[in-house]
């Protein structure tokens, strides 16, 4: 088929991983850790401002109801209460929250419900008091009268229902629907020997970082300046969204970043806590802290994950060669759709996985129901997408009686095909997939395990082996925000996802890096920045100072998301370092009275090529730059400082008819996970006996940190596969509210992961780095599902619904579907 190839010329051939680096590729102890180990992390709830008040939110007990009245008079008179703001009052004083969904004016999203509640947990009023105990006491005194409506819970029924609507103004519960056809799908299905079909269900989950989202608003009525100390949204490029909601000028708002105890996507764009704290500070004139408790996070934190119903069809030849793929997905978004269907863009970025599949049809229906809305959770839709693809591949292998590793191997994109454009148009920058598979099979001792499995099964044990080969896209592009719509309906075709840094080298040669986006969430932003800067200036990463700047006056920066931060910081810091090193070179040449071209940077200074006695070290040159203006070349400014804004490394525009979405998620890693499990037929429990993970995310920066991300992501993927689920009853009542019933894996639920690496550098990023932060969670659900199938193959059980809880497995064994 024909693909856009006009960008391939920009993409150089991959190079071998850098082996001459001082720091990149070394497992450096993280610079963030000493303060965290001492309990001196300064998370947002550790911060106390003079005169600070505490906010709590009254949450709706109903899934769907009209607000008849809110009487807060008793609460306002309660001890310690300074202010109560009801939903109807808030709607008069503050704007809607920023909503990137289609037709946001028809499903208006507010920090507090104004006229109708749309899910259990939606905020109805905020109480602010001298302390949290008093605020919670007063909250219980607010009287709300509701007119309870029929709940809208089942998305399949809701999609057809035009009588009972989550948002009447929308006229439907389907917020978005489109079918994309990439390539000759009909022809490829007609030419195929067989078509394998599957119906799959990916259950609703949530990231549940142990530190919830929180903010402290601090409004200065004298100047009109609003400072928000926050552990969530603080990226400069879209901070104006909060200013609009708060009704203050964008240049009077400063979102100041604080470290956070985890995000996993859920803090990427998280407006609610910031706006809650800030609006109450504006009302009271005092600093106001709003910290979600666990129920606030779970029910009113806007951060549930994908909730999908799939029909999947794979067309293939009898020898196991894949031809074409059709996906029809209903996604239950809950009551709002804050990011549009962006999570399907993540799925489309690698819709055909690591396989040669020449055409694809993708239909998505985004349905609104009376549930908490979706946000982002590690993988952001590519998690479910990978699982669905790997499930149909396993079904095809079973139908053709092929080994699951073999059917994958014969369909892997070959190394000489990169850069490779998949049917949706996205480009995979580089890859060498078969060595990853071979590495994993060898590390796992696949043949040995198959023999062991037969012996153990002969003893009556239900042993299964699962294998997945799947991709991790990284570094998202902004076309993903709008390519859903026709060009005429897109007001601004955004293409920027910037990441800015400022760097200084001070008078004695010490290096500082200033970052402008969301700070440390556990993802080692400071260590990455320090290592890249240390590589450039030949200093120790522990000696690099890293600063997190607020949004006000900041360079454009988009922050973490889509496994982009390491790639983007590397690009930005490399760029800023070059500016400073170029200036150092000019100063050195001037001082030494030699031609700049004769100088080389060696071990932290410039010298005349090959002449070590002619050295000017960075500290010598910095001294001149700051203190000896007369030693500088004419016109050279004093000091050593540089800004650099790195932007997306490879973005191309979608075609007007959307038959090709362009390249938007181009830094694509690969992995193979292999797992052996034992299933207990009586209890339905799944015991993991062995787990191998081999990943290729391009050049490794800090292997130990990277492995930590892989193991941690794999643990989350195991939770996804076996235990974690946000369930609702038929009335829209959440059946899960605590860590007693939302089961995050413990140390006894996850295995020792045996991990290995391959390194195929990206040809389009600094140092060849690709993102890898989501990779573990993108693989584990498919591997576990396949292993359970294999263990229970004598019973004809297939995992078609996640999580595969003990209860579900027992049900499948008793013949209740699966």
């Amino acid at each position: 088929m024909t693909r856009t190839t006009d960008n391939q010329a920009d993409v150089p051939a991959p190079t071998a991983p850098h082996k001459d680096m001082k720091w990149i590729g070394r497992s450096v102890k993280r610079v963030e850790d000493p303060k965290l180990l001492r309990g001196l992390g300064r998370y947002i709830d550790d911060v106390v401002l003079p005169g600070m008040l505490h906010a709590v939110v009254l949450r709706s007990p109903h899934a769907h109801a009209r607000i008849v009245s809110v009487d807060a008079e008793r609460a306002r008179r309660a001890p310690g209460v300074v202010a109560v703001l009801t939903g109807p009052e808030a709607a008069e004083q503050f704007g809607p929250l920023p909503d990137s969904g289609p037709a946001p004016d028809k499903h208006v999203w507010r920090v507090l419900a104004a006229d109708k509640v749309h899910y259990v947990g939606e905020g109805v009023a905020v109480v602010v008091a001298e302390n949290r105990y008093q605020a919670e006491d007063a909250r219980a005194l607010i009287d709300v009268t509701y007119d309870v409506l029929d709940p809208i819970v089942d998305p399949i029924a809701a999609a057809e229902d035009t009588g009972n609507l989550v948002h009447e103004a929308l006229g439907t519960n389907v917020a978005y629907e489109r079918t994309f056809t990439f390539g000759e799908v009909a022809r490829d299905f007609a030419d195929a020997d067989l078509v394998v079909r599957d119906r799959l269900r990916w259950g609703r989950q949530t990231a549940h970082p142990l530190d919830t989202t929180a903010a402290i608003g601090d409004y200065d009525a004298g100047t009109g300046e609003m400072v928000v100390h926050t552990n969530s949204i603080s990226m400069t490029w879209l901070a104006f969204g909060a200013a609009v909601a708060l009704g203050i000028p964008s240049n009077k708002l400063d979102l100041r970043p604080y470290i956070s105890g985890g995000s996993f996507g859920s803090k990427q764009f998280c407006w609610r806590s910031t706006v809650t704290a800030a609006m109450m500070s504006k009302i009271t004139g005092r600093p106001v802290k709003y910290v979600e408790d666990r129920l606030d996070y779970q029910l009113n934190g806007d951060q549930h994950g994908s909730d999908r119903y799939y029909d999947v069809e794979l067309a293939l030849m009898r020898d196991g060669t894949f031809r074409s793929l059709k996906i029809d997905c209903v996604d239950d978004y809950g009551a709002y759709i804050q990011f549009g269907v962006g999570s399907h863009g993540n799925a489309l970025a690698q819709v055909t996985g690591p396989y040669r599949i020449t055409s694809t049809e993708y239909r998505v229906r985004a349905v609104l129901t009376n549930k908490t809305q979706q946000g982002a959770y590690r993988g952001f839709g590519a998690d479910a997408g990978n699982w669905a693809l790997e499930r149909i591949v396993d079904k095809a292998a079973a139908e053709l009686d092929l080994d699951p590793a073999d059917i994958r191997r014969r369909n892997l994109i070959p190394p000489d095909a990169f850069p490779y454009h998949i049917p949706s148009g996205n480009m995979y920058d580089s890859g060498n997939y078969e060595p990853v598979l071979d590495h994993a099979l060898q590390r796992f001792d696949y043949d040995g395990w198959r023999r062991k499995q037969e012996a153990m099964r002969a003893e009556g044990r239900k042993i299964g082996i699962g294998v997945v080969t799947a991709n991790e896209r990284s570094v998202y592009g902004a076309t993903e925000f709008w390519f859903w719509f026709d060009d005429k309906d897109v007001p601004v075709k955004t293409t920027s996802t910037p990441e800015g840094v400022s760097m200084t080298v001070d008078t004695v040669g010490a290096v500082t890096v200033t970052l402008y986006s969301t700070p440390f969430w556990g993802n080692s932003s400071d260590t990455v920045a320090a290592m890249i800067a240390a590589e450039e200036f030949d200093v120790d990463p522990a000696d690099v100072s890293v600063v997190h700047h607020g949004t006000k006056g900041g360079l454009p920066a988009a922050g973490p998301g889509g496994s982009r931060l390491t790639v983007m910081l590397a690009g930005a810091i490399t760029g800023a370092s070059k500016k400073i090193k170029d200036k150092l070179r000019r100063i050195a040449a001037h001082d030494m009275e030699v031609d700049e071209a004769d100088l080389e940077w060696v071990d932290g200074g410039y010298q005349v090529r090959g002449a070590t006695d002619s050295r000017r070290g960075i500290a010598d040159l910095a001294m001149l730059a700051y203190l000896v203006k007369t030693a500088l070349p004419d016109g050279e400014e004093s000091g050593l400082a540089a800004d650099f804004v790195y932007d997306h490394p490879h973005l191309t525009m979608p075609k007007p008819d959307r038959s090709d979405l362009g390249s938007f998620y181009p830094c694509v890693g690969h992995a193979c996970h292999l797992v052996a499990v034992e299933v207990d037929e009586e209890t339905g429990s799944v015991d993991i006996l062995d787990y191998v993970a081999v990943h290729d995310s391009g050049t490794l920066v800090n292997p130990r940190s990277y492995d930590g991300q892989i193991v941690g992501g794999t643990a989350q993927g195991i939770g996804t596969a076996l235990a974690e689920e946000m369930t609702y009853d038929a009335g829209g009542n959440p059946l899960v509210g605590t860590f007693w019933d939302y089961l995050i894996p413990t140390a006894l639920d996850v295995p020792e992961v045996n991990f290995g690496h391959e390194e195929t550098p990206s040809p389009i990023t600094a140092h060849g780095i690709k993102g890898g932060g989501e990779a573990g969670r993108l693989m584990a659900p498919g591997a576990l599902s396949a292993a359970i199938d294999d263990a229970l193959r004598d019973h004809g059980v297939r995992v078609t619904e996640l999580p595969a809880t003990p209860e579900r497995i027992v049900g499948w064994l008793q013949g209740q579907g699966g």
Partner: protein
Amino acid sequence: MTATHEPATGVDEIDTDPAALHPITITVNGTTHRLAVEGRRLLVDVLRQDLRLTGTHTGCDQGVCGVCTVRLDGATVRSCITLAVQADGADVRTIEGVAPDTRTLHPVQQAFWEKQGLQCGFCTPGMVLRVQEILEQNPCPTRAQVREGISSNLCRCTGYQFIVDAAVEAAERMAEGS
């Protein structure tokens, strides 16, 4: 709770008014504090808000996740479901009291750093205190014993593997040091 204490007042005199203040004495990291607290006030709030020891965190407020772990008379407890009045007369150790001085980390902390037994750091204070307790009870645990021991505490970042590495490393360091 393993600690037992004399009540601050006689049983007959207990005031049922939630706002009534009760005098308590607690020793935290070696410093004794005399406080008057509401009967419902949580130990974690006394530590974090009254004493400004914010290394102890809260994660679930229900005693499940263990990020609020402190040691009360030597035993790890969940400070988010422990009333401050229950700690009257007790010796409390928090993460701020683990390192010997501002320049040196405790071997458990050092091993967590070396092995990257943390990512976001939010569960870390509770984990460090729990691992300390495990190693005091069993100075040379197997990996399986460490896993069982730390299964009391949730970590959402690490998948626990490097925490187990850190505990085993700490055990070795402490054996060498003793």
